[in-house]
């Protein structure tokens, strides 16, 4: 392969991977930004999304319905968890959140195993997305282009949501000064519940989109947790543009790093995190130091 086609293909690979990482990380960024919660269960919602997507797609025969319904359902489950349990813990410290979300991870993991079994499940793609295009004579899956497009659309949508809508304004305000927002008469609890639900829904969205690539399986959650935390930390906690940058950076490092230095594949992400935190302790675009 010549250099230019090679670079183009690899960049395309990297962007598609960045899209998946972005879906995973953006939900956690929002949750962390507003609520300062270390949500250990984020990976489990990602996994849940993949399995719900599988069932919906199988029952209705439509991948798109699965893509639409899965985040909604996961978001509802997340919101009810927040309202039922997490809400009581806001005066407590990090340890309480760690333990309750760890417990939730165990519960969800086992529930999924009971409901769907131990085998990996395949999420079939609609024929429109199952084809290939040729980048300089090299086949490239249409689905990955779809992922890149979906990532871009989601990034713009969230950006506009945060900048232009009233709810987005409330979210940004709550993350900066929750007391003040409360004093202004807004039900901060509702904002928090909504954000948590949205974060879980975004994770689930990521799960459905990842499923055709990796099959829906019980091991998804554990992998996803570390990835999502790394994205949040590198980007800067609570920074939405940061999570986008981090996703792209990590994806490129992984794709090119794995190609040129396959022996360091395991360690690449962590070395990157070390480097970023050494230079900018608050993450790329974070505020805290």
């Amino acid at each position: 392969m010549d250099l230019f086609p090679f670079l183009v293909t690899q960049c395309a690979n990297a962007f598609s991977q960045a899209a998946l990482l972005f879906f995973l990380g953006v939900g956690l960024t929002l949750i962390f930004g507003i609520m300062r919660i270390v949500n250990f269960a984020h990976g489990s919602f990602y996994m849940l999304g993949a399995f719900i997507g599988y069932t919906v797609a199988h029952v209705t025969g439509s991948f798109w319905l699965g893509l639409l319904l899965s985040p909604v359902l996961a978001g509802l489950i997340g919101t009810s968890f927040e309202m039922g349990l997490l809400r009581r813990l806001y005066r407590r410290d990090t340890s309480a959140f760690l333990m309750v979300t760890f417990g939730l991870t165990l519960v969800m993991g086992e529930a999924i195993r009971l409901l769907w079994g131990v085998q990996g499940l395949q999420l079939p793609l609609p024929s429109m997305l199952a084809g290939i295009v040729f980048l300089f004579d090299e086949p490239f899956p249409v689905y990955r282009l779809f992922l890149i497009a979906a990532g871009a659309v989601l990034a713009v949508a969230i950006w506009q949501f945060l900048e232009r809508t009233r709810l987005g304004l409330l979210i940004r305000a709550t993350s900066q000064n929750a007391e003040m927002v409360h004093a202004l008469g807004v039900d901060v609890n509702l904002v928090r519940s909504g954000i948590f639900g949205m974060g879980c829904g975004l994770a689930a969205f990521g799960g459905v989109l990842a499923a055709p690539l990796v099959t829906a399986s019980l091991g998804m959650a554990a992998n996803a947790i570390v990835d999502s935390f790394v994205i949040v930390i590198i980007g800067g906690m609570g920074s939405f543009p940061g999570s986008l940058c981090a996703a792209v950076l990590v994806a490129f490092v992984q794709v090119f790093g794995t190609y040129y230095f396959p022996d360091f594949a395991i360690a690449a992400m962590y070395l990157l995190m070390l480097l970023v935190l050494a230079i900018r302790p608050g993450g790329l675009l974070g505020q805290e130091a």
Partner: protein
Amino acid sequence: MAKGSDVSRRRLIQSTAAVAVVSTLPQYARAAGSIKIGMPLPLTGPVAGVGAQMRRACEFWAKQVNAKGGLLGRPVEFIISDTEGNPATAVRKAQEMVERNGVRILTGIAVSSEALATVPRLAEWDTIFVSGDNGDGRLTAEALVPNFFRPNVSGPMGTRAVALHLRDSPMKKLFGLGMDYAWGHNSMEVFEAECKRAGKNFAGAVFSPTGTKDFSTYITRIRQSGAEGVYLVLSGDDNAAFLSQAKQYRLGEKVQLLTELIDQMTINGTGDATVGLIGGSRYPYTLDNPVNKAFVAAWQAEYRTPPDMFEGDQYQSCVVLQAGIEKAGSIEAAKLRAALEGLEVDSIKGRVVMRACDHQGEQQGFVIKIVKREGMAHPVPEVIATYPADRVTPPCNKMVYDN
């Protein structure tokens, strides 16, 4: 006041300790005089699918045996425990079975790292371990202990079968992709040696860390190597992810995918991505011999699906164990060990000989091709080559071949 709180504290601690102790007291067999076989298995965690297969195989075998009056006139009972795929837990569970349940025979222990951690303790426990699926070559080489027996196919044997098939193929240049841990490297070494022996060009290999989700870089590497065939040493989620993605990149159209092992669970979970794959199979249910046909028929009557790869291998191990116990007339380790060495069994895979020098079961090797068949919901493994035991089984205590 101080005294009162001391006493009540002491009482609380004592009662908690009592509860803890009771849960560890020796348990006596529910059925008096039953033969207890311990099975530490991964029932949860990433390899839970394999654990479920092995459990089903043993339950099926126990049912058959007990229906005919049991072994040595005693019913067979399995003691099953979840190891989560974690070696520390596996050793703890195995030790509990030995110390608390009085178990003297172990099987199961699906993951090779669990097996490697357990095997050095067998002498101390005076317990025989009959492997159901452990493929790590070292278990019959450097890590061999007298109480370990392997009736199933090992990693090197699976690789050897595929490599023998390659000798007749026109493909000249080959590449490799393996999981970056012991099994992946071990099998790839064997493959590389076999390629050289067959006069093929081994263009190199690349290894992916366990848990890799995105194989795009590796697919690029495979393509760039210009190889006509790529040998895959992948399992579990990584295997499923790679196959799905390879299909999406239409890799199979340019490069023949070869694999060390592929089971029905993975075939079912990846849809059509496995069609055209050529690989080793430790047990393809489509084998055409009377013993296997009877087994498959009985299995389908019970479970409504054909037996999967690990189910067949575990079943064979149970059958070998049965033959050993019947020959020894006892389950004591010393007698059982002597009986198993040199034992010959006509099993679902043909004749298996448990050779004495390294306790490996000598048996045929199979190469399969995944094809679509009319009327079957999922693709099917079709046997395209069979190699006799003496060509597939490595020399004693070794993981590499001489010819």
